[in-house]
């Protein structure tokens, strides 16, 4: 009997197997053919192993970077990059994260079904990263596996349901419809950008009236952008650390500047592998989630990845990225002056969330809204990761961390609650659930009262002409 139990525990400890089983369930629920089901299950299983292999490559490049940064500046240097950190986390906490991800989808569907928040979080990649962070925070702070999965899944479902709702008022302004939402872990920063734009901006002066040369193509090639930006960072730190230290301690005698370029290349290679793994894993899981949520949730609003807003305001994309990046540099300058851990601007995060902040900021406050809103996002994604690092256990020392604003806000709330005790986490999650249901009921009631008072008034929401993607 004991050996059977041990076998189950062994299976459970292999995240690749859990991922394969989740894919299998999804494929069976979609009534795929036997051959498609087998193929998909095996692909998801192997996809996770690809991801784990990429994590090793990234880690080989990041460990010496951390040592070198420490030697050069005497403090910890952290590059926020979701793929880089999530690879490491999924190697250590993969099973729990995979189950939080899976049950988090179930909670998301249930909340969308039974409240007014009809958002179905279709951006599986960032949802997976979120579940990884939740798993670390809960388990590194003493939650048992099953407790972590239960409360983690509820937290995951709450964040993925509420986060699109925060941006939706501004999304309506951008897309002129109410049946598509934004699903990204940068949403808290993007929503803040919309608020900043509304407060300080002027919608009459749109970014789209400006004449800007659109040489953005290179910025969209993730592999190139990461290699180049990390190359610059590695070279700068290597120059400060000096050839003596680098060639003696890290490069095994290789010329220090070549070594720096090689490490940057390895970092980008690792991210490339992780992305490929994530893509394969999600390709087998998300279609089932989409199909099931469409059946169970009438009028579901799919929450989709940030590039869906990029075509609405191409100038704001560039302006938002630059403003967010400048915010990141200003934030880094402040951290250098204050002393302590330095957050180096992660270019991918500033591009994805900064560009979306620019588009949203432009919709609520024109040029000024795009610039100041995106800059606020840049500052947020510099300081928020610092608030979460202490709750990540060993992972907090990994020289990379989760980059977007939702990680910062939800990680800080969850982490702070954990420090108060496990009961505080449970209270926080249950209170949030109650607040969600009460808020939803009150809004429905208010709407009914308003409808009764002015029966002829159209709501405007029914006028959407485009069909949603999801």
């Amino acid at each position, binding site marked *: 009997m004991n050996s059977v139990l041990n076998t189950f525990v062994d299976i459970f400890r292999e995240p690749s197997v859990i991922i394969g089983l989740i894919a299998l369930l999804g494929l069976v629920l979609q009534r795929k053919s036997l051959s498609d089901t087998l193929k998909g299950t095996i692909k998801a299983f192997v996809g996770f192993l690809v991801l784990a292999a990429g994590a090793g490559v990234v880690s080989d490049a990041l460990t010496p970077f951390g040592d070198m940064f420490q030697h050069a500046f005497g403090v910890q240097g952290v590059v926020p990059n979701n793929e880089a950190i999530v690879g490491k986390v999924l190697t250590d906490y993969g099973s729990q994260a995979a189950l939080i991800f899976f049950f988090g989808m179930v909670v998301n569907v249930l909340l969308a079904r039974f409240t007014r928040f009809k958002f179905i979080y*279709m*951006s*599986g*990649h*960032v949802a997976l990263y979120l579940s990884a962070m939740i798993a670390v925070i809960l388990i590194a702070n003493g939650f048992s596996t099953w407790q972590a999965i239960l409360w983690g899944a509820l937290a995951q479902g709450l964040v993925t349901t509420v986060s699109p709702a925060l941006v939706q008022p501004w999304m309506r302004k951008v*897309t002129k419809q109410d049946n*598509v939402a934004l699903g*990204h872990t940068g949403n808290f920063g993007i929503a803040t950008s919309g608020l900043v734009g509304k407060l300080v901006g002027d919608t009459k002066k749109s970014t789209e009236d400006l004449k800007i040369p*659109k040489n*953005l*193509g290179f910025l*969209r*090639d*993730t*592999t*190139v952008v990461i290699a180049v930006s990390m190359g610059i960072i590695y070279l700068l730190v290597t120059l400060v650390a000096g050839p003596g230290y680098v060639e003696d301690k890290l490069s095994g005698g290789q010329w220090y500047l070549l070594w720096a370029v090689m490490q940057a290349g390895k970092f980008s290679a690792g991210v490339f592998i992780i*992305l490929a793994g*994530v*893509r394969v894993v*999600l*390709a087998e899981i*998300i*279609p089932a989630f*989409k199909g099931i949520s469409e059946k169970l949730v009438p009028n579901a609003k*799919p929450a*989709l*990845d*940030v*590039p*869906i807003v*990029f*075509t*609405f305001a*191409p100038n704001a*994309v560039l302006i938002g990225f630059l403003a967010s990046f400048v915010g990141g540099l200003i934030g880094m300058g402040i951290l250098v002056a204050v002393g302590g851990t330095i957050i180096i601007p992660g270019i991918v995060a500033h591009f994805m969330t900064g560009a979306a902040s620019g588009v949203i900021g432009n919709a609520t406050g024109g040029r000024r809204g795009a610039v100041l809103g995106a800059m606020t996002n840049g500052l947020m994604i510099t300081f928020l990761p610092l608030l979460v690092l202490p709750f990540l256990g060993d992972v907090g020392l990994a020289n990379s961390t989760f980059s977007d604003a939702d990680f910062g806000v939800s990680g800080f709330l969850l982490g702070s609650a954990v420090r108060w005790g496990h009961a505080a986490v449970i209270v926080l999650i249950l209170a949030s659930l109650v607040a969600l249901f009460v808020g939803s009921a009150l809004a429905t009631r208010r709407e009914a009262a308003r409808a009764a008072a002015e029966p002829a008034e159209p709501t405007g929401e029914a006028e959407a002409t*485009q*069909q*949603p*993607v*999801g």
Partner: protein
Amino acid sequence: MKFLAMCSTGLGSSFMVRMNIEDIVRELQLPDVTVEHCDISSAGPESADVFFVAKDLEEATAGLGDVVVLNSIIDKDELREAVKAAAVRHGAL
């Protein structure tokens, strides 16, 4: 025939476009069409017969061949017309 949806990371928006193309392919009952998604740097001219990208990525698709540029990736009507036209171009409809 193979359709390929692309975006900068090949994770989110290209995947959504892919799933919508799959719905449309089923709706139009196009025979022997496979649909995949990937990041824009992984794609070469041999990767597919028809490539789908959002307008903001147009300049990164030079040299790929039959590229369909979408004005809005959340507009399913636009996508349906584009898929239909592509199927006609390649003799599948």
